[in-house]
């Protein structure tokens, strides 16, 4: 079944956790940026409580968390443009589509899943 060559290998990083109480979100972003700096094809996915990482008007410094959310703006610098967010997860949490970075693609669950399936390696955080 393996017709994958190294050149075409694509990597997905799936975020499922809220940003502040665990290191998961920051460590996922650290990994994404390294893949980007090595010019690997990398996509970011946000589902479940992971969508809380992307909503606007958060104030990390008010609770003494270093604002790693600001670092998401570096994704653009590494040409990481595939950033997908699950529409159902947003709706379930009654969140508006107000994000702190641009270029987020809000996809319905089925399309979100299809995109995820197209990647060769998937890391979930």
């Amino acid at each position: 079944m393996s017709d994958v060559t190294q050149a075409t290998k694509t990597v997905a990083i799936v975020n499922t956790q809220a940003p502040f109480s665990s290191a998961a979100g920051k460590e996922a972003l650290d990994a994404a940026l390294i893949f980007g700096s090595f010019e690997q094809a990398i996509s970011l996915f946000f589902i479940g409580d992971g969508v809380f990482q992307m909503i606007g008007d958060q104030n990390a410094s008010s609770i003494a968390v270093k604002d790693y959310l600001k670092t998401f703006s570096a994704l653009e610098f590494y040409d990481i443009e595939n950033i997908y967010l699950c529409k159902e997860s947003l709706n379930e949490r009654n969140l508006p589509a107000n994000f702190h970075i641009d270029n987020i693609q809000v996809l319905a669950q089925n399309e979100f899943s299809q995109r995820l399936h197209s990647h060769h390696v998937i890391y979930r955080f």
Partner: protein
Amino acid sequence: MAMLHIVRDSGFTSNALAQCLNMSLPRDAILLMDDGCYNLQHPLLLAALTKQPDISIYFVSLHANARAQYSEQTLFTAITFDDVLKLIFTFDNSITWS
């Protein structure tokens, strides 16, 4: 005895909120702290307002604001850490759900 339920987790990811609601009795209070503030919009908590009208619900406003979480419910009371401390001594005992 009247119990203070401290909820520190999102009910969308874990069953902490559901378990807390199952264990709460009429004179109890629920305190949303940390990621517990994500429950301000959780259907189970909103349903509790009608099912368990005697229960008091508080949230740490600092934690909710940091997460851009708000509530239109006037029945949810925004409080500070000083108030948390008062609650701890007002209630007979406490349990932490996280």
